[in-house]
């Protein structure tokens, strides 16, 4: 393996000091001159018609500048998803609506000089609603008498059916010795980014719109807003400041359109910050899913056929729905000769589903891994042995995929993780005092893969690198660091390529006025897609420096090679070596002066899957049904880890989100009152310090030939297998297959009939 100087080292992140001393500026920390506030009136009903709105009292509130009603905004349909344009992204949403389709839908908005005045004005808006029948889950939404949410788009509540296949599924089942069938359920969960969705929209008089935005996809945001507001894209500027997480939540528009229109009308910058309550039900949730699986295997444990029929609840609008379902079809880490995936994206009046770390994969992986565990036991095989027997290897293709795998270090992951598990068990058996027969302990193991960049391969990125005369560099990238540390990672790639220290890179990221296009921060793209763009921009800069040196030293460019940070010029009488710094000081000024600007355009050709193996150890009290989560081990193949500590941090964070998904998180809707109950962080539990087991991370020494310095991705991967591992561990302990998450206390007790 190559000897790297900057890559593969755990450098501290650039912005950590600012964050540690409270000086990092997030959107809400900006105060613009003349700035006012905006708030949105959201529907209290899951389905209703607005019969009338009386704004006269609201307008009288001191400090109120404007009340915006549905008739005041452009009557255009759009899709808020921050994906690049696609026919799957059906446009069915309005900026403000008089026909709210979920509790939280935008009805009206206010701009006022204080937040208090905004709140008072919203209270004084008199809205007359006619409540309509609402449906909340896919079963209700697909009943014949269900209200159609978008009759103009579909004659049922099915937005789209997504199909993926290979081989002949019927033949596959014929060739199987045993066929298993079951149904699995996964809940709606919320991203719970620590920073709420926040925007400052400033529509200046000269027809320019500037938005400081918690955005994962600034360039898509710009495109959609420009179209909605009839503006040119270069008149819309999206600035992404320091951001408090995202996890997919900000891969779409939220309130930017409302803020922009308010700002245009009142002629002042407007700050709109979601409350936590708005975050919980009027932002984004992960699609709840109902998944039918049918798997055929041979006696000796080979999977012959794998059929999925899945129903993803997309909520009131299409947004990401069909792409989430499609993404869920593409991430199976097993060799399956006969595969059929039928995924239905279904409208309902529940909160709008969208992107949440994993994008269609956590649901599928939960169902698949649990079922494969059960099958292994029925075949009297060790589940790990059974899964490894069917696991893809280098040269294989994932089901329904076109590209062969160039990297897969699952075996090393398994070995590394098993070693950790062995040590834990050894240690615990040494310290064990007495055996309580009512406490059952067990491990569960789950496997998965994900993607590096959109699995549709539509990831694109570009980067510009300006090399200064002192050999330092300014890196401009359009890819948005939302808290995961991509600015540091991409700078490490640039520094390695240029052969300079990390401190010599200054990075500017994600401002559509200054940085080049990037598809966006989603699909775990930043290291692979963004990293390849940076790698190419550096290559371009090196080529330009080489040419400039050739002119200066009057040699052919082929006489100059760049190796380990040095330009080596070959003369007959011997070699001359220059560092980047020396080269730049020679070529920048003078008669033959050259300015060096490297640039790139990278379009993903592959989206290589990273792989993970996850172990959970639980102890279950068979009398009370309570589960104590003792350990989670996760071993990952992320290709070359550009920054191992950052990879470890991503895995640890992904595990905690996976624990929440498995054990406690769920957006609950009361079907009687038709209200979302999970309206704050008291009624929606996320893991806190005391909920966490001991976490162990193993990072395999992987290498992906198409990745920058061998890297793949990690962000989403890490959370995908966790719920399955926990569910399997509980099943192994209790003998009861877990087919529904979250595995809350009441569920467990019911499950055992205790």
């Amino acid at each position, binding site marked *: 393996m190559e000897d790297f100087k900057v890559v593969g080292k755990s450098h*501290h992140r650039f912005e950590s000091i600012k964050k*540690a*001393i409270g000086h990092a500026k997030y959107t*809400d920390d900006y105060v613009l001159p003349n700035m006012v506030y905006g708030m949105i009136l959201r529907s209290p009903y899951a389905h209703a018609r607005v019969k009338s709105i009386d704004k006269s009292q609201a307008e009288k509130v001191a400090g109120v500048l404007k009340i915006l009603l549905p008739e005041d905004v452009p009557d255009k349909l759009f899709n808020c998803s921050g994906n690049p344009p696609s026919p799957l992204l059906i446009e069915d949403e309005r900026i403000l609506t008089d026909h709210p389709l979920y509790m939280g839908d935008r009805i009206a908005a206010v701009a006022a000089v204080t937040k208090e005045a905004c709140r008072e004005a919203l209270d004084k808006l008199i809205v007359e609603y006619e409540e309509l029948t609402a449906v909340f889950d896919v079963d209700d939404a697909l009943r014949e008498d269900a209200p159609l949410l978008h009759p103009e788009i579909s004659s049922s509540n099915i937005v789209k059916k997504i199909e993926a296949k290979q081989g002949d599924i019927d033949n596959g089942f014929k060739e199987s010795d045993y066929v298993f069938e079951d149904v699995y359920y996964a809940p709606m969960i919320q991203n*719970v980014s*620590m920073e709420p969705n926040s925007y400052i929209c400033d529509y200046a008089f000269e027809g320019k719109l500037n938005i400081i935005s918690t955005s994962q996809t600034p360039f898509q945001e710009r495109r959609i807003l420009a179209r909605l507001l009839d503006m040119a894209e270069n008149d819309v500027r999206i600035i992404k400041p320091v951001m408090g997480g995202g996890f997919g939540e900000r891969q779409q528009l939220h309130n930017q359109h409302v803020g922009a229109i308010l700002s245009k009308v009142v002629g002042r910058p407007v700050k709109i910050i979601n409350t936590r309550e708005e975050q919980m039900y009027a932002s984004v949730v992960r699609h709840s899913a109902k998944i039918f699986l049918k798997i055929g295997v041979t006696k000796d444990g080979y999977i012959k056929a794998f059929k999925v029929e899945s129903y993803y609840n997309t909520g009131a609008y299409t947004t990401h729905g069909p792409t989430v379902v499609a993404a869920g079809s593409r991430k199976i880490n097993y060799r399956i000769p006969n595969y059929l995936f039928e995924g239905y994206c279904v409208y309902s009046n529940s909160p709008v589903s969208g992107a949440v770390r994993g994008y269609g994969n956590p649901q599928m992986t939960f169902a698949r891994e649990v079922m494969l565990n059960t099958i292994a036991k029925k075949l009297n095989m060790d589940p790990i042995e059974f899964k490894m027997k069917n696991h893809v290897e280098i040269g294989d293709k994932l089901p329904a995929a076109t590209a062969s795998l160039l990297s897969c270090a699952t075996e090393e992951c398994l070995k590394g993780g098993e070693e950790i598990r062995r040590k834990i068990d050894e240690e615990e058996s040494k310290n064990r005092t007495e055996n309580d027969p009512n406490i059952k302990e067990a491990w569960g193991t789950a496997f998965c893969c994900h993607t590096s960049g959109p699995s549709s391969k539509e990831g694109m990125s570009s980067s510009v690198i300006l090399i200064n005369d002192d050999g330092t560099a300014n890196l401009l990238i359009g890819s948005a660091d939302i808290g995961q540390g991509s600015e540091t990672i991409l700078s490490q790639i640039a520094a390695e390529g240029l052969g300079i220290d990390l401190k010599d890179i200054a990075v500017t990221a994600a401002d559509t006025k200054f940085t080049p296009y990037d598809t966006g921060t989603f699909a775990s793209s930043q290291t692979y897609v963004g990293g390849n763009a940076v790698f190419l921009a550096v290559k371009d800069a090196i080529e330009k420096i080489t040419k400039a040196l050739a002119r200066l030293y009057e040699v052919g460019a082929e006489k100059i090679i760049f190796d380990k940070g040095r330009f080596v010029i070959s003369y007959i009488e011997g070699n001359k070596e220059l560092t980047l710094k020396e080269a730049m000081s020679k070529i920048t000024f003078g008669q033959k002066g050259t300015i060096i600007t490297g640039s790139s355009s990278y379009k993903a050709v592959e989206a290589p899957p990273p792989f993970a193996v996850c172990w959970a150890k639980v102890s279950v009290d068979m009398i009370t049904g309570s589960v104590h989560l003792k350990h989670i081990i996760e071993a990952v193949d992320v290709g070359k880890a550009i920054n191992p500590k950052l990879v470890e941090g991503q895995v*640890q*964070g992904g595990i905690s989100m996976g624990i929440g998904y498995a054990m406690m998180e769920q957006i609950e809707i009361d079907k009687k009152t038709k209200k979302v109950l999970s309206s704050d962080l*008291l009624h929606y539990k996320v893991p806190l*310090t005391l909920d966490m087991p001991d976490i162990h991370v193993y990072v395999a020494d992987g290498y992906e030939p198409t990745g920058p310095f061998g890297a793949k991705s990690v962000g989403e991967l890490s959370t995908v297998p966790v719920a399955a591992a926990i569910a399997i561990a509980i099943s192994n302990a209790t003998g009861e297959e877990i087919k529904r998450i979250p595995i809350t206390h009441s569920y467990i007790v019911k499950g055992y009939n205790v």
Partner: protein
Amino acid sequence: MDNQTIHICIAINGKKYSSDVLPNLTLLDFLRESIGFMGVKKGCDSGHCGACTVLLEGKAVNSCMLLAVQADGKRVITIEGLNEGEKLHPIQQAFIEENAIQCGFCTPGMIMSAKDLLDKNFNPTDLEIKEALSGNLCRCTGYTKIINAVKNAADKLSIQRKASEMEEK
């Protein structure tokens, strides 16, 4: 509602700030919007996430759950009050060294809760650290590195204490 204000004076990070405030103004909004200590973060405004944690008379509190008037005449320390210019506080240093900061939105609150703990308990166990931070939500890190950072900070502070004891002798 009439706009009757109350005069308060709070010592924030060692400096006194006097102001006439509405009685319903939270300490959080006072710190952020009246005084400009933007390092104090608003994550939920309802006492559930801990991002707004500050020290009130040395004790970690959710500043969104207190009114500014309740802090009248008292001492408040925010994240901005820990470092002396470029010289970071050992807890801040430890959070950076241990890579315990990802998106950073929970960091100021985490560090203040850790300070409350380490001021009282020089050598906390893992469980004591978890208990002290159990009101601070972090969605990025899974807490492992944060707990390591608090242990690292405890070590740093104990070395610092020993050094100053030596000096006194």
